[in-house]
């Protein structure tokens, strides 16, 4: 992890604390750069309050300080629409006439285009990946949306793994988990479960999903000697 951390910090300017965080940050950054967006972020859905919580941002260092931990209602905007429709959404979030902008009290720095892709586990939304582009005439294409959707699908698996492993570790601490199950066995089991969910009974999709998960697993394990 130490080698990973220094490489990520040197070349991408990100300093993750865990391997899972590194994978998520890489995914957010990859999606943002592919779409040519200035800012990207990962929001996790709080199912109790139906709010989206900013978990990490990419692109603007200031955003990481100001946004992480902030909550926004999941019933609004493109991110909310992505949650409600369980679909990637691409559009311009702000009104295009001055009357509306004034009424909304819009700030000067408004994004001109936004992408929001839901992170799905089974059919439940657990969060949203967003990207924002600034400047006149900036737009995201259908290709950007499709790619971001795929990135969000993988990020969903990672977040789900993280949450499940945390739950398993909690069980382990309370002594309710068989001692024979190591963390590695748990990871394997979770990956198999995720593949099953992603392929959704369509075996021809197995190879593609397996390739992505194998790459992720390699990343999570860190460099081999």
């Amino acid at each position, binding site marked *: 992890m130490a080698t990973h951390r220094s490489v990520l910090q040197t070349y991408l300017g990100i300093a993750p604390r865990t391997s899972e965080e590194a994978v998520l940050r890489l995914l957010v950054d990859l999606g943002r750069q592919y779409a040519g967006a200035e800012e990207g972020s990962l929001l996790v859905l709080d199912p109790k309050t*139906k709010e989206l919580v900013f978990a990490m941002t990419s692109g603007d260092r200031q955003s990481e300080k100001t946004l992480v931990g902030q909550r926004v209602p999941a019933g609004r905007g493109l991110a909310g629409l992505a*949650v409600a429709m369980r679909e990637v959404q691409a559009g*311009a*979030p702000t009104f295009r006439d001055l009357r509306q902008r004034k*009424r909304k009290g819009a700030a000067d720095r408004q994004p001109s285009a936004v992408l929001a892709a839901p992170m799905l586990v089974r059919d439940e939304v657990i969060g949203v990946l967003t990207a924002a582009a600034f400047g006149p005439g900036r*737009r995201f*294409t*259908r290709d950007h949306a499709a790619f971001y959707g795929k990135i969000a699908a993988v990020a969903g698996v990672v977040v789900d793994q993280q949450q499940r492993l945390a739950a398993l570790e909690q069980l382990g601490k309370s002594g309710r988990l068989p001692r024979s199950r190591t963390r590695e066995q748990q990871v394997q089991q979770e990956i198999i479960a995720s593949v099953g969910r992603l392929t959704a009974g369509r075996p021809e999709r197995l190879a593609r999903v397996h390739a992505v998960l194998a790459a992720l697993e390699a990343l999570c394990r860190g460099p081999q000697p």
Partner: protein
Amino acid sequence: MSDIGRAIRENLKALRRRRLAAVEVAVVDSGMDATHRALRGRVKGAWRVVERRGTVRAIKASCTRNNDAYGHGTAVAGIIASIAPNARLLDVRVLDEHCQGGGPALLAGFEQAISSGARLINLSLACVAQYAPQLHELCERAYRANQIVVAAKRNMPLADNGFPAEFSSCISVDAAGFQSPYVLDFLDPPPIEFAARGEHVRVPAAGGGYTHMTGTSFATPTVTGLCALLIGAHPDLRLFELKTLLKAAARR
């Protein structure tokens, strides 16, 4: 494109200027902002799906107010209204600001759209395979009543293209980067049949003003609008005839 295809496409444009029969178009979505100038006077009926005591059902709503939490339905309805001046819109809201909805709400809304007698039903949303059997039954019901269902392909298909778009009893739509709403592609292989303008589409925003949206959700009402024009000119058209006309008008 064949000569007949070119003629149909030219005719589609010309239809807008002709006196057409009114066509009722149900939009099963997030609601509509009936106060928006793009929709004012165009919304003829409204329902919203609610859950009460564990039962999901559609109840009457105002068709003169802003009924849209997200702006999605307003955008979809705006596209139909701009293409087909003869479209009379029916607002069936299945998504609300509390993120309630999902499969049961869509089923209830779809059923309401069929019961309302709408000639065209626009579904710019895709449901998961879990609800495919019930959706299939509703699509068949619509088919037998000569009601045309136009459904969106999923933007980012993982396991399927989304339902009901996978059914042959619908007109299924993908998005393309065309500038004109009159340009279509016929897609091969099935199940998704047509691609229409769905990138950076200028649409009315709920609350006023306009915005731009991208995706299959906004390509679907483009096809619905074209169908409304064709049905307005030839009210007896059936699903297979509409598909044939659209295929003939397609670039490929």
